[in-house]
């Protein structure tokens, strides 16, 4: 099970230490209270002798201890809070981020400053570097969080937030939108694919390429349909005339493992079901239901699947 304790970044590792201190302290306090409660409940139960116990009502020394104990504990954690925050979330200054995230209802857009790469939901990052991840939103407030990466960030329209991540090992990390953002809040999941720097450079170069022209009659027909229908007014496929910005960039759609922000596996079946009736698959999604014929859907599916 991947949890906040399976740290994948140095920042999360640092946080993990703080988590551990906190859990120990909290359990100690809980144990103290619970033990005293149970012990008193047993020891001081009514003996049925009708004798009223001694009517003690205060003890200043004891009260002072009650005041000082928690204060010391709190002070210690305040110190740890400040130290850890400074370590894991220093201000970004004017640094150019490694990746810029834009939350949409209900998918993630990622752009890579300095390149023309645009992708959605599956975000590729290199390991071993301290990455600045910047976030904002195109509509309502979303929240970017991968449990294994440590801290989260709200992405808010009109504001720019940031987090840092120094990923330690290649792999696939999952996360999700954590701020309630409407109907499909549940299906706004994040997949981060971490590569070695060399792999990452290769991926970046490939992702910067325009879409490969379709091969085969069916896919070519799909490409024509895509351009002809309203698809192109919302979606971008670099290298073609489709330059919409409402929906996810589909230039390399076929290379993604999942579709619809983690809702379904990306395969031709799911894709054609989605194109047939989007509102049945992901109710509320901003993709309208177009009345395509069966053939058109086959053609569009073939075209999009080819966009590796």
């Amino acid at each position, binding site marked *: 099970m991947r949890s906040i304790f399976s740290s994948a970044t140095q920042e999360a590792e640092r946080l993990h230490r703080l988590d551990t201190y906190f859990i120990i302290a909290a359990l100690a306090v*809980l144990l103290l209270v619970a033990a005293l409660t149970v012990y008193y409940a047993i020891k001081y139960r009514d003996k049925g002798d009708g004798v009223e116990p001694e009517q003690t009502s205060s003890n200043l020394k004891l009260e002072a201890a009650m005041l000082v104990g928690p204060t010391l504990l709190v002070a210690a954690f305040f110190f740890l809070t400040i130290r850890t*925050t400074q370590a894991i979330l220093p201000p970004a200054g004017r640094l150019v981020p490694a990746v810029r995230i834009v939350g949409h209802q209900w998918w993630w857009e990622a752009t890579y400053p300095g390149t023309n790469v645009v992708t959605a939901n599956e975000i590729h990052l290199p390991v071993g570097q301290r990455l600045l991840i910047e976030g904002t939103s195109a509509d309502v407030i979303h929240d970017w969080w991968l449990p294994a990466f440590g801290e989260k*960030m709200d992405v808010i329209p009109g504001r720019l937030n940031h987090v840092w991540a120094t990923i330690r090992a290649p792999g696939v990390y999952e996360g999700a939108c954590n701020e309630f953002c409407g109907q499909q809040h549940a299906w706004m999941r994040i997949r981060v694919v971490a590569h070695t720097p060399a792999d990452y450079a290769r991926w970046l170069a490939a992702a910067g390429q325009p879409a490969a022209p379709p091969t085969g009659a069916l896919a070519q027909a799909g490409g024509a349909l895509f351009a002809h229908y309203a698809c192109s007014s919302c979606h971008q496929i670099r290298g073609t005339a489709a330059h919409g910005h409402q929906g996810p960039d589909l230039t390399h759609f076929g290379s993604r493992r999942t579709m619809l922000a983690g809702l379904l596996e990306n395969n031709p079946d799911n894709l054609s079901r989605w194109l047939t009736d989007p509102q049945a698959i992901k109710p509320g999604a901003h993709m309208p239901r177009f009345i395509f014929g069966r053939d058109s859907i086959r053609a569009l599916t073939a075209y999009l699947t080819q966009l590796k």
Partner: protein
Amino acid sequence: MANTTVLVPEPARPLPGLSINSSQGLLQWISSVDHKQLGIMYLWMALLFMLVGGLEILLVRVQLAVPRNTFLSPEAYNQLFTMHGTTMIFFVAMPALFGFGIYFVPLMIGANEMAFPRLNALSLWLTLFGGSLMYFSFLAGGAPDAGWFNYAPLNQFNYSSSPGVDYYCAGLLLAGIGTITASINLVVTILRYRIPGMRFKDMPVFVWMMLLTACLVLASFPALNAALAMLLLDRQLHAHFFDVTGGGSAVLWQHLFWLFGHPEVYVLILPAFGIFSEIFAVFSRKPVFGYAFIVGSGIAIALLAFGVWVHHMLAVGLGNTVNGFFSASSMLIGIPTGIKIFNWLATMHGGSLRFTVAMRFAIAFLVEFTIGGLSGIAFAIVPIDLQLTDTYFVVAHIHYVFIGGTLFGLFAGLFYWFPKMSGRLLDERLSKWFFWLFVVGFNGTFLVQHVLGTLGMPRRVYTYPDLPGWGLLNMISTAGGFLMGAATLLLVYMLVTAIRRGPLAPADPWDAYTLEWATTSPPTLQNFDRVPPVRSARPWRDHKRPDDADHLKPGKKKGVHGK
């Protein structure tokens, strides 16, 4: 009565409603301005809304029982969880706490009525009408679906175009005004209507906590009302307060909402603290330990409540400077809370504990609330908050606070005061069943949610992918929820049968300490004829044990608690 007694002033003119013959049945209740009847109506209203809100969340739990469930549509799910949160906070917890307050504050301070009986009735009906208006939205095109916190810009017309959010605003505005008037009424009553001789430091802790709660309401609800008014203007007249594209600010809503919302947490918990303080004392057969510290920490909590709201917004990105300061103030609030917990433990220490159901809830509260309090500290630690906020860990935390604290307090108060209010006794055996069912169900539901949070399950999702462990933990949680539901039904059954044919209750069944037990069960329309003189915080005990009265203790002059 043996001692000199104090005469209780009586209203010169009979109040409207009271002269109505009871053969008029319901009309007598509707027209009533008697604080006891109004208090009971608040409680019935809370129970009704609790059944509704509980049903809503059971539907939600069914939907979440298994991964990728399709029992509810996302639309329905969002409406249900929004209504659940709003209902439970504004129309269950607050009316119930105010119901106890309005019923027992006058009794505990030896008064015959609230300061403004008609205003008292108006408060109740405003609250009830607000709640009904919000529920009317189900018929008017869709309930609110943006969460009880209703964040901008999701609450804007572009993103939530059903009229639900408008009904949310209107309903909460009405209920909010009702709460404000009730609070004003309570403050005036407590400040001016105490029986002559009762000083502030002789007031029962519950009265203190209601006073603080009322002050908190007066200081925090204006922020909510302003925010709701602005939101209505945004939605109805196209203003731009929270509309980012029109120059407004999404974060502004959060500031206003949490400026209200955090004090609201203490509005919900302080009266419960008051109830527990009474119960720990009476069923330990001791005065509450550290009266001054319990009251003082209550005042500290009430004041600090206004300086910590930004900890709900640590992930918003206000900067490390802002977050650091609010981390400090939020952690501070743990100190007075800790003082209270340890003082209750010290009350039990050396006592003679009677395990009535009220006391059982109080003891269970000590542990459950500590869990909720400690997980709350986690959210004051900025980096941990940045991990856990908006996950199921928060859901677990708030329910340990609101159920383990507030609701247990309400149940404890109900079992403690039921004989006084109804003149009947509840079935002891069934009550214990209820206690165990509810406590087990509660922990079953929410303990596992801590784990779900650390596994990364976001809150407010209508479904989730089939990740390892998620399905099982959610299923446990749902089962626990149904256990709580069953317990609640048992409670309703117990209440109804006890009111119909429960054994008659004596005036003072628990050998208690405060003035509400100095009158009949149930109290007569005019609460008191005469009450014993108040010379300490336990006047009724002083009266019953004149030789061992608190004010006679060596070294303890009147009102001096502790040396």
